[in-house]
């Protein structure tokens, strides 16, 4: 794992994610950022969940990822361009860690405050 790949400051290395069925799992944003590499999420969604019009149909996962229920259902049963990830491939714990990582990504600056985006 290369540290330079991720320069964002994580708000919290451990976060508690409330799952749809009401159970609470201790999820780790730090583990989550490793998991997005291990399981290939970065390939289409980027290292910060920013997505791409070319790979994620423009969908942005972070900041503000979709609600857990929606997120986990999509990952498990996707029949879109994104392949489904079963528990055999991606455990519930890993998925929760990934979600915690996405939640930890701070909001970007308003584009109006970035001179290069106002040329």
């Amino acid at each position, binding site marked *: 794992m290369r540290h330079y790949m*991720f320069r964002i400051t994580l708000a919290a290395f451990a976060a508690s994610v409330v799952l749809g069925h009401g159970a609470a799992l201790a999820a780790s944003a730090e583990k989550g950022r490793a998991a997005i590499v291990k399981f290939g999420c*970065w*390939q*289409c969604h980027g290292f910060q969940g920013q997505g791409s*019009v070319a790979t994620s149909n423009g969908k942005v996962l972070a900041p503000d990822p979709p609600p857990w229920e929606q997120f986990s259902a999509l990952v498990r049963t996707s*029949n879109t361009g994104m*392949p489904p990830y079963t528990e*055999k*491939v991606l455990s519930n714990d890993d998925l929760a860690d990934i979600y915690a990582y996405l939640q930890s990504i701070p909001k970007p600056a308003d584009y109006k405050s970035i001179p290069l985006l106002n*040329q």
Partner: protein
Amino acid sequence: MERKVPGTKDSDTKIDRRKFLTGVAVAGAAGAVAPQAANATMAAGTAFARVPSALPPTAQTIAAETGAVLDTARVPGKPGSDYMVDVIKTLDIKYLPANCASSYRAIHESLINYGGNKMPEFLTCTHEESAVGMAHGYFKIAGKPLMTLVHGTVGLQHAAMAVYNAWCDRVPVIIVGGNDLDAAHRPPGVPTFHSAQDINALVRDFTKWDDTPVSLQHFGQSFVRAYKIAMTPPYGPVMMSLDAGLQQEPVKAHGAPLYIPRYVPGSPPAGDPNAVREAAMLLASAQNPVIVADRAARTKNGMRLLVQLAELLQARVIDQQGRMNFPKTHYLNAPAAAVSNADVIIGLELSDYWATVNYFTDNGENDGIGVNGTRIKPNTKLISISSVDVITKANYQDFQRFQTIDVSMAGDAEATLPSLIEAVKSEIQNDRKIAIEKRGEAARKAFKEAEVRTRQVAAIAWDASPISTARLCMELYGAIKDLDWSLVASEGNVSNWPNRLWPMDKHHQWIGRSGGYGVGYGAPASVGAALANRDIGGRFSVSIQSDGDLMYAPGVLWTAAKHKIPLLSVMHNNRGYHQELMHVQRLSSFRNRVASLGGDMGPIGTSIMNPDIEYHKLAESMGWWAKGPIKDPAMLGPAIKEAVEVVKSGQPALVNVWTQPR
């Protein structure tokens, strides 16, 4: 001149070079006798002769150094290849990028000596794919074709992928392949390995025309014909097999004198007037017409015409970016999804009409085939103007899936637009004008909203490392925005940020992509296009160069440095074959397996890392100014600014940037 002979016992032994050369000249003359006698001479002399420490000089060297005048001309009269150069010169072909080869040695010699290495000027390439790729990029800026020479079987096979790209991208390139046809006379060994009955067969499926001239006059006719066919829309590459014997034989004095046919450009095919009128009626009465353009604007006039048609109808335009068809700054510019509300769609030179109005999802359903569906409303009327309909071939599948079209015109879109515009003008009823105006107002609003959304999305991961592709593109734009810039390649997919964020409104600011999606196009095409931009008067060329693309034939960097072609190449170095990386990941998930990474970040076989390629050092070794690897986004702007100054001074420069995947 005297010198000591190193390594001899008698270190005082001295050789007078002139006497040495004279002696060799005598030996050379002796060598002209029959082989058996020569062997006898050599054998007899071996006991007495001191073996020279260097290879004997050639007859030309001896003549130059002794002042002796030797008549070395083996072929009396004007060489046939001189006539070939005369023919080529009538067509104003400015450059000839090529990798040298024995099978075209005669015409090579004529080009540089008889022809003075001008019109065309020989550009030394290190790979035939680079040569054709350069010609490809050059045409899209200059609007004029280049020719290349390739070596029989092997050179043409090297060139083939680039020829296919040119074919799919409708770009003319004149390819001449040296080929020694006469089995009784050609040298045995390598030249025979490199000859074939019909080298043109290698590329026949993706060239417009080919020929094998058997006389000099035949060459004259065929070369001009080849040029004309290549340059009549739809443009495309053409191939000529050029016999080595024909190149070397003299122009014969008997018979009718050789002539050079005059080239007169042909006009492009235009849409049938009745079909144009039918299309105009549909467009004029549509509630929501949408224009889709791929390779429609062959010239800047094509872009002007498309703006005129769009404004006349207040119709949104989806630019599929095969060329710079429509200004990105125009409020009628629309995303691909705009087809969903259309009741009439007109496609102009679309390479894939089916995928414009349908979707395919590679989700493993239907026994792995995936899901197909429509993007458009039922009863949407489809119009097409495409010149490609007149040159479709059978084998290679660049014609894509079949789409039923309501009004289909086999004609060149740009050539048809003037009559279509006039027909639309006469078909628009007065009572439609208010509705058309309102359509424009809605388009303005949608355009402004989309612009804000796009910029906000670009801000995400702005400070990330590896550097986001949005940041890469906007740092680059910030450094060139005040110049007359031309984005000559954007390979490897940077989420289309330049087309979404750069205010492109000139035809030369975007020249499309490879056509056939054969990786390896970006580097040579950007060099070729930069050459054309240089000659236009110092227009600034910039490319977004991907890592996988550059590694196909990086020698083109050397060609750029050697021939002083200024180009700023900013690398989108995501350290992988990213498209394939995602494919393997997808298949792994479909099959319920964890993709094996093998210590890399992507599935085994798809990463370009461990070791990481130092592209900046690669470029430096070939004469480029270079910097990198840039991983910190704060360092990117200053590095690009430095590189811009280098390129402005006339040198090529490369900035190696580690980027997010897309």
